[in-house]
């Protein structure tokens, strides 16, 4: 099995206060772990989804994968090459093979460039001179279902859905091997969400590109990803094949997330799992199982010890004392 991307025990730290402040304020550690012990791999042609709520560290992990944030520990390998130790030139070469789709569709487009210039920006950055930029922009626009006239428009003249498509077109420019999509449907109406998801699915089957999707919306995940990981407080709590996770979620947090997405039916029998309280601060991680402060099924063991890795199948694992 050839993994395109292999992440092992990645840890990303952020400095939250200065050393001086830490010294004065009696804070023992001026850093927090935004991501901790994250391990996953994405195989050729696969779509991997990372699900979590705000502050779970999912976007941070994606930035670390792209080499945009340094990883404090662990390894991130792309086609066998270690990303964490790459120099500037190697990183630039690496970034030819990965492409980002950003959360904010309009905000991720430079406001003073036309759509045509925006989607051919990767060619200019990587000095790809053999291609005819005008023809390329028409080709890319066509791939994402926009008419070629759009090349002359500016970002503020685009609707949310159109800006998304431009973002996809730009991501496709250099025929990347991996597309990292951060909240691909955020801010879109449900009637437009489907269009973007369908587009991503189509590109995947047509081009065979790998995708790394980051989202808080489990409904999105179900329809586009092969494997899914759930993140809480910077750690993976459950990881496995998407179908398995939806058919039989094992971690209480996964359960709660799934039940928080009710179907539009007033008669649906609701077994909503309501979590207590709010996500704890990363500065002050709970002892034992980090989810125990909110878990409806909390037991004594959860307060004491960090839960062991529980393996359901070769591909499906979770960290919980009492898997469902």
């Amino acid at each position, binding site marked *: 099995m050839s993994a395109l991307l292999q992440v092992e025990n990645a840890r990303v730290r952020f400095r939250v206060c200065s050393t001086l402040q830490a010294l004065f304020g009696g804070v023992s550690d001026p850093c927090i772990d935004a991501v901790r012990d994250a391990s996953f791999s994405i195989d050729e042609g696969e779509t991997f989804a990372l699900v979590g*709520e*705000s502050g779970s560290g999912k976007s941070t992990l994606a930035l670390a994968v792209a080499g945009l944030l340094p990883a404090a520990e662990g390894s991130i390998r792309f086609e066998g090459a270690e990303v964490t130790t790459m120099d500037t030139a190697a990183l630039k070469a690496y970034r030819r093979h990965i492409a980002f789709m950003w959360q904010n569709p309009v905000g991720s487009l430079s406001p003073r460039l036309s759509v045509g210039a925006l989607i051919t920006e990767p060619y200019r950055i990587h000095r790809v001179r053999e291609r005819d930029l005008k023809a390329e922009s028409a080709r890319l626009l066509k791939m994402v279902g926009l008419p070629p006239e759009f090349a002359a428009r500016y970002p503020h003249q685009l*609707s949310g859905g159109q800006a998304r498509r431009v973002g996809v077109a730009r991501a496709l420019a250099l025929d990347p091997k991996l597309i990292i999509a951060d909240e691909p449907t955020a801010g879109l*109406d*449900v*009637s*437009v*969400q*489907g*269009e973007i*998801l*369908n587009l991503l*699915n189509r590109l995947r*089957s047509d081009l065979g590109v790998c995708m790394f999707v980051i989202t*808080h*919306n489990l*409904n*999105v995940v*179900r*329809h*586009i990803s092969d494997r899914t990981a759930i993140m809480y407080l910077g750690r993976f709590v459950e990881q496995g094949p*998407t*179908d398995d996770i939806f058919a039989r979620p094992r971690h209480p947090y996964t359960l*709660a*997330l799934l*039940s*928080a*997405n*009710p*179907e*539009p*039916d*007033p*008669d*649906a029998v*609701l077994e*909503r799992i*309501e*979590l207590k309280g*709010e*996500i704890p601060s990363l500065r002050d991680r709970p002892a034992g199982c980090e989810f125990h402060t*909110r878990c409806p099924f909390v037991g004594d063991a959860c307060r004491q010890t960090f839960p062991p890795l529980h393996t359901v199948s070769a591909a499906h694992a979770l960290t919980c004392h009492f898997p469902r």
Partner: protein
Amino acid sequence: MSSDVLTVTDLSVHYRTDHGALQALRHVNLDVPRGSIVGVVGESGCGKSTLIASIIRLLAGNAFIPNGRIEFESRNLLDLDEAAMRDLRGNRMSVVFQDPMSTLNPVLTIGRQMTDIQYRRNASRADKQRRAVEMLARVGISDPASRLGQFPHEFSGGMQQRISIAMALQAEPALLIADEPTTALDATLEVQIIHLLKDLQTNIGCSILFISHHLGVIAELCDYVVVMYAGEIVEEGTARDVFHRPAHPYTEKLLQCDPAGIAAKSRSLPTIPGEIPDLVELPAGCIFKNRCGYVMERCDNVVPAWTESAGTHFVSCHRTQT
């Protein structure tokens, strides 16, 4: 006294723009029965926010109301002067807004803001504070007395939304307007807020006008549902009617599109192609015709009438009228 707390009749709201009048709301009819929860569903640009702003009469400066009545507890709000209107706000009707981070004043303490809005009560400061503490406890804020002295930014988003709800319900209003109160929150917090609202509604016995684009939440919380599209109400009925027997093609499509309703894994999700028409130069006929799958000849130039499809179920579509 009618059985409805709020009755909106034939309400239109336009905005003056450089290109002409933008007709944000057109001939809207809406009832909120006493003690019920009415949900308003619609996507961006459907006129939800304008509807709320016109009910609480805090419309933008360039808005005007060419026709309509908004009857609240048997008085037409559009006839009231500013003082009378102000007397209703926060008293008989109150609002919970979408973004909890920005709805509270950042430089005043929670306690100050919660006692300020009790200015109508002829009570001592201590008494007002006691009332604030009591309300905070009711919305599930632990150790409320000591938190009165804190500023909004010292609370998390979910907590801020609880405080907003506490403020809104402090005067036990007859009508609570909730404008996408959970959109800015994470899913697990959304569940908490929905349950809180439902509990408080039963306890206090007020009516709620609940605005959301989240179909699942509306289905779970609301008794009646109103579907809006491009400034019009296209369908209205009990939650069961609307979600089980959608009569308008837009409702039908919207329900199909909601990924939460699609249990089977699908690589090709339903969508509603096309875009909302220009509200300055309205097309003739049905407003939804350019995106409708059942479009007929009549849709092109005849505006569909508002008709009863079954009992409490209303719709404006030519298809149901044949």
